[in-house]
């Protein structure tokens, strides 16, 4: 899905495009947009110039930095390497250390090296933070959308701390689409916020201040990378994005189409985030846990959930109006609808349709088929949200 603001590509998307970091389906959408949008082309050019100037600066900064000391070669780094490749002779501490490094390989406990660098005793607790993850390895992937991780089911205990923490985060909107995780540990409940800025950190601290039992951590501890697997990345669309866009332009005009694109992509992302949050609450607080809740806790959970449902309905209503306005552009396919897998599955199918029909993503599916999928998903979502308690 192409992120846009006011129908235009944002700086992040343009930078990803300039650096060749976008998956092919996104890159195609960006190229398509740039071909018809002078404002975004100009912005891309500004960013390209800034990047180029920084590269020049960085090259100069490196060039005037001191060279690596020549004595490195004299002290025989190559000799150390040769030693390492020989069978170990543990004649002294230094050699033992080197052999330890050699045998430890990529998964070595880096506190060995860290202790040398710090000149202090080894600190095994740093292992998880320091393990090198070489490029090309396959890091574990995160769950894509929910901001609060899917932890284990909450314990049925009085004064449920997880619920109170979620409610506190919810009040400042930090339980949707933010890198905030709740983790249960032997010490209790930990809230970990990754890479939030200083202002947001203060807000989160303030929000959780009434819950002293919650441990807070603001850090970048994970050696994980988000999977950026493109959906149908190399698919040759039956009707390419340009044809789809041209049809919409013809029906609506390019300005209205651009405005609608940005709105639809944004609302679809919001809808998915809200449904993920609802799904997460259901997993954390199943009936057997809720059975142990006090009336106050039940009410708190209900409030948080009801708020997510209300926001999801708003997004869905806007998406419905968008799809109604483009309903005449394509006839709908009368094919067999996809099985009903619940609200989240329907939101995902709707998101795919939005991505293709309004976001320029290529696909093997026809616009008519996607329109039908969108229509079916919207109807099901409407029903499901209306019956949610």
């Amino acid at each position: 899905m192409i992120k846009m603001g006011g129908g235009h590509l944002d700086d992040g998307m343009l930078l990803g495009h300039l650096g060749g970091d976008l998956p092919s389906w996104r890159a195609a959408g960006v190229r398509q947009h740039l071909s018809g949008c002078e404002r975004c082309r100009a912005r891309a050019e500004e960013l390209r110039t800034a990047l180029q100037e920084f590269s020049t600066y960085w090259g100069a900064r490196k060039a005037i930095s001191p060279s690596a000391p020549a004595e490195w070669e004299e002290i025989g780094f190559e000799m150390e390497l040769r030693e390492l490749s020989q069978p170990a002779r543990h004649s002294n501490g230094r050699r033992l250390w080197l052999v330890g490094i050699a045998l430890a390989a990529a998964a070595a406990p880096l506190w060995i090296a860290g202790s040398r660098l710090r000149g202090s005793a080894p600190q095994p607790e740093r292992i998880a933070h320091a393990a090198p993850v070489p490029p090309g390895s396959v890091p574990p992937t995160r769950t894509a959308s929910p901001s609060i991780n899917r932890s284990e089911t909450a314990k049925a205990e009085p004064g449920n701390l997880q619920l109170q923490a979620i409610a506190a985060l919810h009040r400042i909107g930090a339980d949707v689409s933010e890198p905030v995780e709740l983790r249960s540990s032997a010490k209790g409940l930990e809230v970990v916020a990754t890479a939030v800025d200083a202002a947001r950190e203060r807000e989160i601290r303030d929000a959780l201040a009434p819950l002293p039992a919650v441990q807070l951590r603001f850090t970048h501890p994970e050696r994980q990378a988000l999977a950026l697997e493109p959906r149908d990345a190399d698919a040759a669309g039956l009707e390419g994005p340009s044809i789809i866009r041209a049809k919409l332009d013809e029906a609506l005009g390019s300005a209205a189409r651009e405005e609608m694109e940005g709105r639809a992509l944004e609302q679809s992302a919001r809808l998915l985030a809200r449904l993920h949050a609802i799904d997460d609450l259901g997993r954390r607080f199943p009936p057997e846990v809720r059975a142990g809740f006090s009336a106050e806790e039940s009410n708190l959970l209900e409030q948080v959930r009801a708020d997510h449902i209300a926001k999801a309905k708003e997004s869905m209503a806007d998406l419905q109006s968008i799809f109604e306005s483009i309903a005449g552009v394509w006839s709908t396919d009368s094919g067999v609808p996809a099985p009903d897998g619940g609200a989240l599955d329907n939101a995902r199918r709707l998101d795919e349709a939005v991505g293709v029909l309004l976001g320029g993503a290529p696909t093997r599916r026809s616009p008519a088929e996607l329109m039908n999928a969108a229509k079916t998903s919207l109807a099901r979502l409407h029903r499901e949200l209306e019956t949610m308690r």
Partner: protein
Amino acid sequence: MAERALTGGRTDHAKRVAELYCELRDDLYRHLVANGIRPQVSQELTQEAFLRLHGALLEGGEIANPRGWVFTVAHNLAVNSRRRPEQDLPDHIDLAATAEGDNPEAVLLRSERMARIDRAFVRLSRQQRLCLSLRAEGFQYKQIAVMTGLGVSTVGEFLQRAIVKLREALHD
């Protein structure tokens, strides 16, 4: 050489790592120093990264991108070796001498732009500086994410904020 995958027998490893060491050590060392890491620490990090490369190869690992690998390990080690983040604050540098050309006005202009970028760069957050410098080294979002321990989307955001600040500095 640096982009060639490293595989092979035990006896070849030391030679290959030594070749890579000669080829890349200055590049890596200068990169670390330019990021504000003290020369002595940068020296140790660089050596350590190559020792680890050797260790990984002895364990039978295949290194698809040796340059990316040693940069990653050096940065991971740097995270561990840093007692306080502010230790990595890079110094301002005088780049006037690096601006060359026949036209004095153009040289002055270029020198002024470099100085503006320098002031903006030093004011960036450590993570923004790191992401930006790794970008300038030619690494892509996914690689930078692995090197820094950030998510790919976070890397994108840091880069975006950094570039926007640089751009503002250039247009002030």
